[in-house]
């Protein structure tokens, strides 16, 4: 019965649902996991690649994590081609803002513009929605470090830790359990940052822990992962997309949480 109302994005079903949007979200739940964890000194983004083959030239291939701007890095889950279009458009939007105001675009505004675009495809034109969810990690001088999740419907929200893609509900519950939630609200004249008690080290550790629980292969390796962090260096945002050697180093460093004590 649902079939009658699912072939066009621009109409509601009798129960008030947009099936195409829901189907897009379903597609994403089969895509490679992306995890983001916010700490007081930065944000960690980790992603599982799904296209793995010995023939792939992986060092030159970005599948999941992309820099949007000097101050924003995003992980994508879902249709790669759809993701590429949205990444290109976001990059242009961010640069046009820089041209207009001579100042980096605040993270939330970039995410909002991206989401407004996605929403358009659920209401006008009769074209299908983008089958992509984003985890956008960024820094700006007003709100500090922020992590946003956005979905094909064009909804977005700010998170301390989030996960999209395969096994996301599993990951989300582990994050909820393990994330050190006691926070100090740091008030300033215009700064509305909420400091969490997580350090970058805690965040990396937690990310590795969650990855090991949600990724199918028993052993994590740099072949299957993309990693990035955004921190501050000399008061300016610094995005670091890890090389495979660096990923191996991280995995080695947090070995203890990856291999649980009771398994050999």
């Amino acid at each position, binding site marked *: 019965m649902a079939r009658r109302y699912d072939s066009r994005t621009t109409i509601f079903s009798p129960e008030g649902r947009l099936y195409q949007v829901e189907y897009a979200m379903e597609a994403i739940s089969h895509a490679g996991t992306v995890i983001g964890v916010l700490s007081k000194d930065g944000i960690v983004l980790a992603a599982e690649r799904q296209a793995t083959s010995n023939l792939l030239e992986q060092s030159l291939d970005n599948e999941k994590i992309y820099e949007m701007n000097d101050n924003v890095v995003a992980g994508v889950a879902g249709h790669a081609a759809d993701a590429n279009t949205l990444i290109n458009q976001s990059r242009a939007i961010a640069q046009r803002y820089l*041209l*207009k*105001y*001579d*100042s980096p675009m*605040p993270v939330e*505004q970039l995410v909002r513009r991206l989401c407004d675009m996605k929403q358009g495809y659920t209401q006008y034109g009769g074209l299908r929605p983008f089958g992509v969810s984003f985890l956008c990690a960024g820094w700006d*001088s*007003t709100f500090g470090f922020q992590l946003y999740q956005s979905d094909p419907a064009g909804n977005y929200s700010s998170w301390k830790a989030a996960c999209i893609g395969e096994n996301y509900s599993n990951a989300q519950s582990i994050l909820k359990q393990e994330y050190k939630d006691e926070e100090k609200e740091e008030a300033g004249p*215009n700064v509305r940052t909420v400091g969490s008690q997580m350090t970058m080290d805690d965040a990396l550790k937690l990310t590795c822990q969650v990855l090991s629980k949600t990724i199918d292969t028993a052993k994590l390796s740099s072949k299957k992962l993309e990693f990035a962090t955004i921190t501050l260096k000399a008061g300016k945002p610094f995005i670091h997309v890890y090389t495979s050697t660096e990923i191996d180093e991280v995995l080695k460093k947090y070995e203890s949480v990856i291999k649980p004590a009771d398994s050999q």
Partner: protein
Amino acid sequence: MDAQFAISGRDFVISVTDKGLRNSILKMKMDQDKTCQLSSHTFMSVSGEPGDTSNFSEYIQGNVKLYSVRNAQDLSPSETANFIRGELADALRSRSPSQVNLLVAGYDKGTNEAALYWIDYLSAMAKVPFAAHGYCGYFLYAVMDREYTADITLDGAKALIKKCFEVLKTRFIIDYSDYTIKVVDKSGTRVLSQDEL
């Protein structure tokens, strides 16, 4: 010809414009406010082609306000000045250029610094410690060059402005009777009367 000049210290900007609206041989209005408030901590003084002045100011004012409302935060003075310059530059090579000269003054609440930007009708922009537009510059740069220091206080700037008024009164052909004097600092924008200088 309008008097339009401004002086900035580390944490304040003080701007002066005359209040006269003259047309040919007539004094049409002698209490005209030639400044345009853009946000709580940024404003600009405007001179140039009558009509273009109000049109351009209102356009900028509306857009700056729209940004604040949309994004729940104000543009900083630097962002505002760059935006204004961009709009003026786009208009310049279009069907409808605006012949306006601006001084954008503001206090950046993020960096806790004051900023003054000089923008002319060809949309050249410079961040400056003090500046003037129009004929008054010929007289006032001499005074300001001599007296200005980077750590000037608000009282020092007020004294400097009094000297500027003296020079204009002595040597400039137009008799300016009244001025709009505005200060922007950490607590926002306020108007000073000539007696308060």
